[in-house]
């Protein structure tokens, strides 16, 4: 029997890798990948706790989170494509019109 803390630790590591990628990379698409990693870490926590509490609610909630993440992916990548058409860049530091 693998203790639940292993899963939670793995989720924490994944979340931190996502935080690092979001803060350190300047490419909008890679920042987007990092957000997906963080969402997956949250899902992993939910499923692990659902398994250990013998409760299906965690799995159901994960299913809804995955559905909303798919919607977020569609919108986010639509924004990236529109941004590239208008500004011809996908780098967050080159989009500085609103910088004071």
């Amino acid at each position, binding site marked *: 029997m693998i203790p639940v803390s292993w899963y939670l630790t793995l989720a924490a590591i994944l979340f931190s890798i996502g935080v690092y990628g979001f803060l350190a990379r300047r490419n909008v698409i890679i920042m987007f990948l990092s957000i997906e*990693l963080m969402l997956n870490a949250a899902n992993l926590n939910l499923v692990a706790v659902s*398994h250990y509490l013998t409760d299906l609610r965690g799995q159901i909630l*994960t299913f809804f989170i995955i559905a909303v*993440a798919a*919607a*977020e992916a569609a919108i986010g990548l639509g924004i990236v494509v529109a941004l590239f058409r208008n500004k011809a860049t996908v780098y967050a530091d080159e989009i500085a019109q609103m910088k004071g």
Partner: protein
Amino acid sequence: MNLSISPEAVPLIREGIFVGLIIVTVFGALLATLAKRMTRAVLGLVVCFLGIAGIYYFLNSPFVALMQLLIYVGAVAVTICFAIMLAEPDERKLAAKTPGMAGPLAVLLGATVTWVLAGTAIKAEWMAPAVKINEGSVKDVGVSLLTTYSMVFELVSIVLLIAILGSLVIARSGRDKAEC
């Protein structure tokens, strides 16, 4: 040749597979965030999602594992590939960009988050896992999706519809400008 596995070896094999899945997941995540080329980053993301799907299966949740494969590996990764193809970003610039000050700060923040969360998870006194581990069967999930959570289920379909329409509208507006 005798392929039967002795009962003592079963937990060992199970833990071996689990550790393998952890390694695959973390490797994929690192590749996704550190890769110099964007297609490699997407490949790393797919590897990470596959590892997480395996862990879901390990956690007795085949339904969530299948959803992970279908939606993340199947749909989200392909959508990101399409976005990379449509945007054709300049990858030489990606290699030239260094994180600068943000890099060490991000490492520091990430390490702090891991330390606090994992430390709490390891130190906490978890209750003993229930004797009856849930069946996690697809049937039970389906029944509760269509009875207890039927309202949320319908609302999610509306959210997805609006997201499809919204992304079409957003991605279209730039094209009009480019053409006229």
